Structure formats: C-alpha cells, structure tokens
C-alpha cells in the first residue's frame, strides 16, 4: 500500500514478520516491536529506533533521534487541513491575536517590507509587512478586531497585476 506525506510517497509491502518500506531509492526492512501510546518501537534493518507519532487531522508530528518533524498526509479520506495554500499577496494572521493598528487603506500603494498593520499576540507586537511592492487590494480587518490563526488580514496585489 502507498501513503503520501508532503508529496513524498512511501510504499509499504508486508513481508513475513515485518514491512518492506520504500521511499524513492531507499528501502528498509522494518519490524514493529511495540506500538503504544503514540510510541513506536521499530527495528529498521536490524537497528532499534523509538519513534513518537501524533496525529492532528492530516498532520503527523514525528520525533525520531531527538528531532521532531511535521508531515502532512495528502492521500486518504482526510482532507488536508487549512494549511498554507494562500494566493501570493494574501497575508494571514500567523497566530491568534488582536489587531493593534492598521497603517494603510484600500488602494494605497505599498513597498516591500512596509508595515501594513500590527498584530498583538502573547503580549508582543508583530508587524504584518508587505511581501512585495504593490497596492492594497482589500483590507479584511480593522483596528481592535480579534483574529484567528490563518485568518486573511489584507490582500496586496503585485505591481504586475496593477492594470
């Protein structure tokens, strides 16, 4: 069977007492020694590995050898979550918080790096900056408004689309 994470497809073939796992030109024989409470004890080509795996929608948090990675499952019944797939120029809130200040109006010309608005979250001020030279196409929030993570704040149209 095949499982895809982040455009990388893993092929699992059950063998006698283990799995043959293939990723591109890499192949390993993997035996599962134990699977409990989000922990997997694996024997990968005879070498022991403790892996920690958690699931959060399509996301998989995986810790191996002391390092943690987030993989996103892209096959299967589940839809991929909200994610980062926004059009260029759509600026979203990197975290939940409150809009402290809005420095631009719709139609304003802006330059790359210009602070468009300030989001306050966890007692810090975070600048929302223009990703390119362009024009403020739409403002989705106003000062004082509370926003969720990934909520669209402002759309900047690049200069090429400024006709």
């Amino acid at each position: 069977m095949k499982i895809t994470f982040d455009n990388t497809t893993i092929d699992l073939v059950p063998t006698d007492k283990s799995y043959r796992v293939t990723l591109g030109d890499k192949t390993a024989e993997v035996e599962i020694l134990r699977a409990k409470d989000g922990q997997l004890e694996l024997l990968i080509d005879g070498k022991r590995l403790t892996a920690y795996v958690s699931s959060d929608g399509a996301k998989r948090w995986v810790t191996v050898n002391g390092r943690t990675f987030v993989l996103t499952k892209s096959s299967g019944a589940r839809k991929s979550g909200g994610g980062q797939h926004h059009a260029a120029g759509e600026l979203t809130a990197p975290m939940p918080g409150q809009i402290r200040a809005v420095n631009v109006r719709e139609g304003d010309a802006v330059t790359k790096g210009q602070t468009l608005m300030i989001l306050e979250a966890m007692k810090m001020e975070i600048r929302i900056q223009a990703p390119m030279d362009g024009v403020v196409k739409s403002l989705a929030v106003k000062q004082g408004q509370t926003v969720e993570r990934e909520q669209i704040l402002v759309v900047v149209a690049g200069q090429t689309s400024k006709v």
Partner: protein
Amino acid sequence: MFNKILVANRGEIAIRVMRACKELGIKTVAVYSDADKNALHVQYADEAVHIGAASPKESYLNADALIRAALDSKADAVHPGYGFLSENASFAAAVESAKLTFIGPSADSIRAMGDKAESKIRMKKAGVPTVPGAEGLESFSDFEKAADEIGYPILVKASAGGGGKGMRIVWDSDDLPEEVDAARREALHAFGDDRLLIEKYVADAHHIEFQVFGDKHGHLVHLFERECSVQRRHQKIIEETPSPSLTPELRKQMGEAAIKAARAVNYYNAGTIEFIFDPLLSTFYFLEMNTRLQVEHPITEHATGLDLVHWQIRIAAGEHFPYQQDQLSQRGHAIECRIYAEDPANNFLPSTGKLLQYIEPRGPGIRVDSGFRAGDEVTHFYDPMLAKLIVHGESRELAIQKMQTALRDFVVHGVVTNIDFMQAVLAHPDFADGKVSTRWIENNFNWTPPVEPPFESFIAASLADIVVPGTKSQVPGLNESDPYSPWKTPSGFRN
C-alpha cells in the same frame, strides 16, 4: 511561619512555589483565570480561587481580585512569582495594607528599582557603574537630541519595563520615530506606563547578573552570577553559572557592586542585579535590578545548594538568613534552557495548540520545572514558555553534554518548539568557547531547520497510520487508504 500562602501566578512558577510551601508544611491557594480552570497549577494547590477572564488584565494582573482571594481563603501571605504583578510596588503595598505578607522586597525597594530612570540615578549616587544614557525624556526632540549626544546605536527602553518588552535597538536616526512609538505602545500595554529612557547600546555585550539575597535584619549577600547572554528578541533562552567570562577577581568586584546596589535601596528577599559586561574591556555596567525571583533561579540553586523559594518564604516570615558571604560557594556547572512554544524558523513567533504528546527528560542531574502535561492547551493568552530544562554537571563540558542528551529525550507534539534550535546553539563552537554575546543569535547564528525530514520519520509516520496500537503489527486489508484511525481512540481510564 505562615499557615497558608496564596500564589498570585500561574504555570511552572506557581507550581515551583507551591512545592516549596508543601515541603515547609504550608497550605497553598492557587488562583486561576477562565483559561486555566484545568491547569496543572490549580490541581497542585490545596485550594483554588477563580479570579476572572482569560486576559491577564482581568485576572492575574487584577490586584483587587487577588487580594480578595487571599483574604477570602484566609491566606496570610502572597507569593507573586515572576512577571504579572511581581514587580508592581502598588500591589506589594496593597498586599501589606490588607495585613497580608508580601513575599518579596518592600514596596519602596520595588518602586525605587522599578523605574529604570530613577534607579539609574540612585545607582550612580551609590557608586555603582551605569551605562551612559538619558532619562526623563518627554518630547520627541528630547529623544533625538539625547540619542545624537550618546551616539547610535542606542537602546530605547520602558522606564517601567523588564523582560525585553517595550525595548528597541535603534541603529539610525531615521528609525527613531517609529521605534519610539512602538516602544511607547508596548510599554503602555504591558506596564500601563509609557515613559521611556535611552541608553548607549554596547555591542557584543554579555548579560551577567548577580543573585542577591537579604533578610529583614539588614544581612545581605550575593549568591554569585548567572551568564544569560544567549538571547533572542532581547529575551534570555539559555542561562548558565558560573559564567565562562568571569575571572575570580571580576566575580568578586561584580558581587560587591551587586551588594552595594541592593543596599542602596534597603533590599531584602531575593533580587537580581543585571549587568552589561563588555568582554573586550572587562568592564561592567549596572543595567537594572529585578526585584523578584528570576525565571532562571534554578541554576543558582544547583550551584549553591540553596533552595531560593524556601528562603524567600522564611525571610518573609522574619527569619534570619544564616549564611555569611564566605560560607557560600559555587559547585559544578548548571545550565538552563527555556523550552518555548515558538517557531525559530519563523522569527520565533509563538505557536499555540494542544499538547498531543509531552514527555519530559529524566535522569540524574536533570530538573524540569513546568506547568504543562500532555493534553493541555497552549493558548495565546500567556507566555509561551513550556518548561525550564535545568541540568547540573561537574564541569561546563559535562553539563553541556547532559543538556544535549536531555534535549534529545524531550518530546513535544502539537506545538512547534525551540528544542532543535537549542541543540544547534549548544553544538556551536562559539557557545563551547563562551563567546556568545546578547546579539549573537541575531548577528552570527544562521539556523535553518532541515529541508528534508529523514527516512526514519516517514517510516514511523506511515507505519503509525496502519498499526493497531497496543498490538503487534497486523497487515490490514490492502487498498484501504485509511483503514482505521488509531489516533481517534479516546484515551480513557487505564485498565
């Protein structure tokens, strides 16, 4: 001794203080906001009082609610922890007015040191070296003039501030207006006070602070230094003691200056004198005093063998601090890493979410102070520090190795953390050489997370998706893309 202490704080420090209370046979009262109903610090207390909404202003910064909670629960003392109202002189005064004991210094000491401008003037008078700068600035032209006199780069700081909030480095006069405005807003929001001061910015400076401890009978000592130069966004992330920068002679001079500074404000209880240290010239300047327990106090506990929170409580109850300066010594080497829910690859922005897994490292010489457990929610209401990982070893080299091992054993899923980033800092030759200055991360350290996750991570993720947990692996029917959802099994009572 007290019968019952209300801890006017949350998270790891509330638990740290309550542990000390339990060991001293004192009952504890927790306070909690709407967001903290099920928090670990609430569970850990003997009693708990709800004090308001999730926003700090309506709960942990609400002095009236805290004092009412203390009176209602018949507590006889209040421990403020760090942050929140811990350095608020009015709160300390109000606690004492309510016939409760404030476990900390006097309101006068807090007031004298809390205003960065006033404290600098006092320190100069007391003969403690201070950084060149200007206080009491009003109009924007005042700022401009003072900055030009001192010479760029300069530092804009909140008079009432601390912890990097409301602090900005200004490299060029063009940036001064925006940065002054931003600092003012942050200062007003964080401390309710928008007064600012400016200072010469010392490049490649080290941050070295001294712990001081005094009783109410005039006895005052220092408990040696902490080197806190590993900082991001002006906030400490790694602290250690002894400092790799100090000679015994410098340690002695700075310790004496720290005591002089504390004595100038008639200080008692635990406090910290922060110095800017210039390693090229071996000079040091008084930066500010933190009139409370410090986040990084555990490394001093390991180095000196003293329990600072026990002594805070005992001193507040009127006990004498029994050790003379020459009876105190440092032993071994201690390091603390602050484990934050934040994304180092994305400008250290805080990360929120539910802790899907949370496994702390264990072992000899490893201490973890934390207020979280698996299943808890990390919200945007409060500081994103998940835990303090503290290690103690015979030498600096062994302590670093122990920290590296401990970080490998720390598993956090559900929020992004700085654990991998910490590993990269600890493995850097500059850190090994003790050459890290406060702007080193910003200027000298180029960290990027690995582009391609290792094969093992894909193996684990894919197998986890097809294995029935708690059993040996079974091959599921083929062609089913998602045959079962082991992840969705409710975690019930153990059997």
